């Protein structure tokens, strides 16, 4: 929280020349580009996500099960990696259009983010009652009319939620737009800070971006509430009918394979090709020490974040009205805040604190500790907390919510103490959510780019930073080893998510 008070307070610092320069020359560009990116990605993910969700939940076609699973695979691919790969592919041919522009960035980001919409929309479609669909058919609606007039409107909260999440992620994106050379707020902040060395202006821009982000957060939270309402309506039987039409089978399968091919298979194969035939980077000890560092960092961060989330969630369950709880709600907005903004927000106060402590030490004891917080793992993990606490606490709290309060009461009436309830009932039931939270944060930290590259300790490197550095130095093929590792790690949570969805379906 404190970091963001610092951010907000930057508005009161007088604007300097750089600010005026930026406002006059580039701010409009940043604004238009960032917003177009968010809206463009929102639109594309909506089209790809709802179409594939609809086709896989209503039609029966060859390999439907495996295709509906594979449709999630692009989630494993960070947007900057897919962008790097396509730039590499396009550079080696002459006939493909250049993607180093806003349009390219929209396509790249949408190709890996549409699964957000896909998962949520598909979930909502499958929850819709069979009776409702049959009723629409009896009333003479065609499949397409049902899709447009019944299914989409009913799934609207879920779809809006998915689209907003994708748009927010696009707004927060740094790696892709930086690599494709699209000037946006995030890259602008980065450049102002490290290129022009102007912390004040960078902070002011970060504050501006933050206020735009909050508009999206508002939309997202509203739709989340609605999703909850609509889920409360109990349906007699779930949508589980399948339409088979021999004529269109092939066509439908092809439509669904498109996003998988472009969002995952083609870039992944390209990475493997580079890694085997072109890359100059070998799988040597240097590389493995980076792998080692990355895993260690991710492990530490995810353990810490999962524990904090567990605490937050318990506060929420046992004292839903407490001030701490309100405070926690604010803290968990972090996922929406772009990496560079988080970086600035934590760096400024901690650097000031470091300076202050060292000044006192020097005056009193004539001795200096050097950097205690900034430039250490502490600040890095602190920043990860801000960024990833939301994902983690949502996972755990949905796990905890599934344990009804009556269960606690039942245990109490059978004489169990609070400690016993935690150990014998909550923990066994929460195991999966804790593990899921751990893994999701783990992979997110592995993929994370801007925070890590700004806040990492000196001489410390992660796979994502390494891959991005190599790619930015025009050594795209050399980045493939690190990229493959990231993608492989990213597949784990995708499998987890799928299992989760399948598990839920089986229970029904």
């Amino acid at each position: 929280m404190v970091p963001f008070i610092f951010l907000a307070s930057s508005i009161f610092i007088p604007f300097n020349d750089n600010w005026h320069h930026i406002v006059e020359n580039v701010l409009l560009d940043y604004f238009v580009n960032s917003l177009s990116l968010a809206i463009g990605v929102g639109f594309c993910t909506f089209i790809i996500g709802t179409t594939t969700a609809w086709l896989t939940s209503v039609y029966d076609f060859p390999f439907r099960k495996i295709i509906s699973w594979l449709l999630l695979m692009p989630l494993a691919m960070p947007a900057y990696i897919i962008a790097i790969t396509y730039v590499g592919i396009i550079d080696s041919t002459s006939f493909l259009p250049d993607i180093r522009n806003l349009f390219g960035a929209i396509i790249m980001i949408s190709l890996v983010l549409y699964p957000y919409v896909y998962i949520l929309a598909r979930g909502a479609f499958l929850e819709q009652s069979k009776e409702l669909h049959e009723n629409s058919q009896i009333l003479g609606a065609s499949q397409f009319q049902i899709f447009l007039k019944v299914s989409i409107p009913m799934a609207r909260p879920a779809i809006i939620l998915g689209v907003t999440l994708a748009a927010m992620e696009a707004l927060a994106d740094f790696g892709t737009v930086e690599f494709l050379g699209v000037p946006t707020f995030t890259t602008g902040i980065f450049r102002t800070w490290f290129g022009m060395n102007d912390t004040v202006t960078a902070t002011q821009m970060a504050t501006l971006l933050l206020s735009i982000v909050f508009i999206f957060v508002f939309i997202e939270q509203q739709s989340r509430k609605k999703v909850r309402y609509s889920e409360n309506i109990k349906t007699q039987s779930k949508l589980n009918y399948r339409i088979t039409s021999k004529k269109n089978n092939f066509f439908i399968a092809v439509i669904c394979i498109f996003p998988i091919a472009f969002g995952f298979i083609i870039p992944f194969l390209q990475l493997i090709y580079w890694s085997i035939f072109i890359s100059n980077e070998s799988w040597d000890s240097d590389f493995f020490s980076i792998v080692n560092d990355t895993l260690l960092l991710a492990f530490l961060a995810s353990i810490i974040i999962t524990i904090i989330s567990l605490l937050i969630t318990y506060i929420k369950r046992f004292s839903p009205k407490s001030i701490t709880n309100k405070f926690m709600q604010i803290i968990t907005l972090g996922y929406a805040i772009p990496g560079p903004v988080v970086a600035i927000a934590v760096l400024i106060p901690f650097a000031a604190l470091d300076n202050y402590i060292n000044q006192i030490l020097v005056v009193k004891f004539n001795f200096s500790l050097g950097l205690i917080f900034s430039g250490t793992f502490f600040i890095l993990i602190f920043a990860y907390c801000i960024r990833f606490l939301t994902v983690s606490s949502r996972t755990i709290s949905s796990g905890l919510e599934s344990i009804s309060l009556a269960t606690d009461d039942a245990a109490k009436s059978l004489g169990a103490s609070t400690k016993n309830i935690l150990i014998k009932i909550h923990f066994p039931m929460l195991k999966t959510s804790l593990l899921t939270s751990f893994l999701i944060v783990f992979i997110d930290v592995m993929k994370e780019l801007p925070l890590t590259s700004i806040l990492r300790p000196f001489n410390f490197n992660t796979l994502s930073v390494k891959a991005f550095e190599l790619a930015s130095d025009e050594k795209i093929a050399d980045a493939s080893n690190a990229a493959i590792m990231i993608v492989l790690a990213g597949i784990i949570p995708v499998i987890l998510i799928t299992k989760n969805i399948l598990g839920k379906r089986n229970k029904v």
Partner: protein
Amino acid sequence: MNKKLIISDLSLDFGKDKNNRKILSNINFDLEESEIGCILGPSGCGKTSLLRAIAGFENIISGTILKDGVCISNSLENISVQNRKMGMVFQDYALFPNMDIKSNIAFGLKGMTKADKEARVNYLLKLVNLDKHKDKYPHELSGGEQQRVALIRALAPSPEIILLDEPFSNIDADIKEDLVTDVRVLLKELSITSIIVTHDQYEAFNIADKVAIMNNGKIEQIGNAYDIYHKPVNKFVADFIGLGVFVPIVKNENGIFETPLGLLDKNKFHKDEMKYKNLEMLLRPDDIIHNDESSTKAIVIEKQFRGAEFLYKLLYNDKYPLLCYAPSHHDHRIGESIGIELEIEHYVIFEK
């Protein structure tokens, strides 16, 4: 005093209610050892809150709850849920989904050897014919089976009182009747003091020795099923329990009370009832007899076939709706005029 449970002047609220209304006010209720009590009322009347207060989940603001003459709740102190020796069966059963049936039942057993626990669990499972399901998980059982598991789980630690919150509300109608009887037999066999909360009067009448009718956080009447049906103390109870209609009573110039359907017998009145001017009388469907010979006629406006009998809804004199049971061979058309006569055992009269 050998009452098992005494609730006196109990009040309860959940802080700021919009209308500053108490959830429960001035509740008085008691149970003898091994008596089965039932709290019956429409949804939202506060019956579940009362049960939760007895269990110790809610803190009361005034009054006392005594168990075996010892105070377990008053406005100042509450013995914790864990130490009340009460078992509770929850509406949605609240079985622990992560444990199999035998672990669910054994959960509340303390200070026993493993073998003793196992014996107790097996004994209880046999009691409700579920012994073959002991290794299954709750979601593998049907609603009725889950309900029985919840019941024996609550009974396992041998509680002194068992509380059942709408235990039959999720049970299909066709097996409910048998289950209600089975549960009553079981509770009586174990001679355990029980309180059941329900909104279903047939459930209440079939299971309980003593029924308390609750409305708006207050108890309206306490009694056995017969008294509550035939001697309701106020209009709410009369209306809520069973079927019936009200007809006005007027005193004619000769000082004789009469209804639109005929004269009434003064001797069947309570003395104080005659003091009031505007009275009305409850007529149950069994108070009106269908008789083709009768000169009093009413028009059939609705009818329900109930197997052995018809329930006719009639209109008398163009303004008084009446209900009447008739043997089902007396099949009359809607719109037909049929003969009826009054035959009332007890007068149930209220001031209008």
